[in-house]
């Protein structure tokens, strides 16, 4: 039977992770995401599913615990907020290089620096462009509701293992903290070591007599070998770009103007679409659900329909770059955002939209 609950977005992630067969959560407290580990510790899944939940001494340690667990073919995750995710970048680059599937949650807060604890989307670049060193990407999911916090947790594990890639849930303090009803996913058992051996032959579970040793590595001596790894990663990203773009449209069919926004900004922008249409301005909203892969072609298609586009972001203008690349100058693309943890009202976004219409 479906289980519907009123809960915080952070709690939904914790519940969904336990239910979808997560083997290990390793984290370090930071506002506004600490409920994820708190919820897990309260549920104590080690008594039921056998899942390990461990509070590490730092984000550096927790991301490297994720590495160790993922290297064994286990479903491992961590969560943090912006400054903590910055600290994890070395480990994320390593996970990407070693092609290890795992789930990372960034409940973004205002930066730069230690910043504020209020919601922000200023880690877009860091998340979709590869925040650490080297050429790499993660799959990045952007939930816009508590329901999606739960759904994306399950989806993130599935995509991570399908493509052997770190997958990030990029959300913010509002989605993490607000309470909504959510239908929790059904329970799915954790894989046994034998099942992991079968499904993920690369996993370091111990070298059996029937195979050569498995190595999880991120260092190569020779440039030629490193280039081969890089080319394999790039080919994987291409496959992901072709097959895994996800987005949602609101009132786009007849739109003259298009807002592009994700997460909390998309929730605000939905209201903006309503307000604009009440005034007779045909505005539509395209909400990218995957930030990598980005819905480039889908946005490009609207360039021949709409007169201008506006991105609404809780930052100084980051995703707007990708929208501009997608439309390649065909229509004006502008950005509206508030910084440092401030959330714009629908009215001020509507005003920004009207300025765009006048100036375009």
């Amino acid at each position, binding site marked *: 039977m479906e289980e519907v609950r009123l809960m915080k977005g952070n709690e939904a992630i914790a519940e969904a992770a336990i239910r979808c067969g997560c083997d290990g959560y390793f984290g370090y407290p930071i506002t506004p995401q600490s409920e994820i580990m708190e919820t897990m510790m309260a549920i104590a899944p080690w008594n039921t599913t056998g899942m390990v939940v*461990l509070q590490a001494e730092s984000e550096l340690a927790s991301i*490297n615990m994720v590495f160790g667990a993922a290297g064994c073919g*286990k479903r491992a995750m961590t969560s943090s907020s912006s400054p903590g995710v910055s600290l994890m970048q070395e480990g994320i680059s390593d996970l990407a290089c070693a092609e290890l599937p795992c789930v990372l949650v960034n409940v973004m807060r205002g930066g730069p620096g230690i910043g504020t604890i209020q919601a922000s989307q200023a880690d877009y670049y860091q998340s979709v462009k590869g925040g650490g060193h080297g050429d790499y990407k993660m799959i990045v999911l952007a939930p816009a509701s508590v329901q999606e916090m739960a759904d994306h947790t399950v989806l993130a594990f599935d995509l991570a293992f399908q493509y052997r890639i770190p997958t990030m849930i990029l959300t913010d303090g509002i989605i993490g903290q607000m309470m909504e009803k959510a239908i929790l996913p059904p329970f799915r058992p954790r894989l046994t070591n034998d099942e992991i051996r079968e499904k993920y032959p690369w996993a370091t579970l*111990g*070298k059996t007599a029937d195979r050569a*040793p498995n*190595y999880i590595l991120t260092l190569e001596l020779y440039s030629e070998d490193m280039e081969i790894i890089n080319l394999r990663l790039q080919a994987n990203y291409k496959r992901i770009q072709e097959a895994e773009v996800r987005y949602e449209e609101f009132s786009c069919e007849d739109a003259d103007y298009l807002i592009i926004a994700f997460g909390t900004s998309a929730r605000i922008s939905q209201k903006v679409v309503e307000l604009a249409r009440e005034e007779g301005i045909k505005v539509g909203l395209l909400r990218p659900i995957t930030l990598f892969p980005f819905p480039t072609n889908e946005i490009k298609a609207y360039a021949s329909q709409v007169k201008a586009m506006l991105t609404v972001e809780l930052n100084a203008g980051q995703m707007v770059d990708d929208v501009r690349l997608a439309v390649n100058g065909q229509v004006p693309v502008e950005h509206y955002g508030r910084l440092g943890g401030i959330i714009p009202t629908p009215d001020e976004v509507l005003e920004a939209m009207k300025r765009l219409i006048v100036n375009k």
Partner: protein
Amino acid sequence: MTLNDIIDPKNLVYAKTKVMNDTPMHYCPGCSHSVVHKLIAEVIEELDIQDKTIGIAPVGCAVFGYKYIDIDWQQAAHGRAPSLATAVKRLLPDRYVFTYQGDGDLAAIGTAETIHTCNRGENIAIFFINNGIYGMTGGQMAPTTLNGMKSTTSPSGRTVPLSGHPLDMTKLLAQLDGTCYVTRQSVHNIANIRKTKKAIKKALENSMLDKGTSVVEIVSTCSAGWNMTPADSNNWMEQNMIPAYPLGDMKDI
């Protein structure tokens, strides 16, 4: 009796363990790393745990340890091996999990991970090679470099006002409630090689007894980094390193 009569499988006394493969090790001639690799491989064979052992390699000269000992390996970012090992052991409690780390890895960049892993009493073995120098990057000063000892980043010798004191990590780890076995050994002669092998064996056995973390420091040479022959390195180590890092068990419970 000719040599050919003696060289017969029935007369075999000692041969390279099968757990160590035939790939020539990249280490410099006479390197202590090679001796310790050999001992770990021998212990894995003696305990018959090749299929149950997962090694975590560091960054440093031993980053390529996986090439020589035929078990499953993960290679950690610099200093993070204990974190990887923590997760591996927690998720695979019936496996033998060890980290192999140098002094830069364990006592500088990975200090926090080392201390907290030991403090949590993770049921793993930590093998710590202390040669007082960064070997792989070309002979820079390590946290364990002795006062007065020359390195490429302390060309006139380490001084306390500039760089502080040599860090005795093993002594520090012995103070933690999470460790069950903390010992300092060396591999510069036969007697000490035998003791080190026993320590390695005990550390791996401990990891299945739910007693906490075992730490085996091996005071080691780096003849290339120290700019000496292997035999001279062993002598220099005995005269200079061992007085600063005295051998023996610090804790065994």
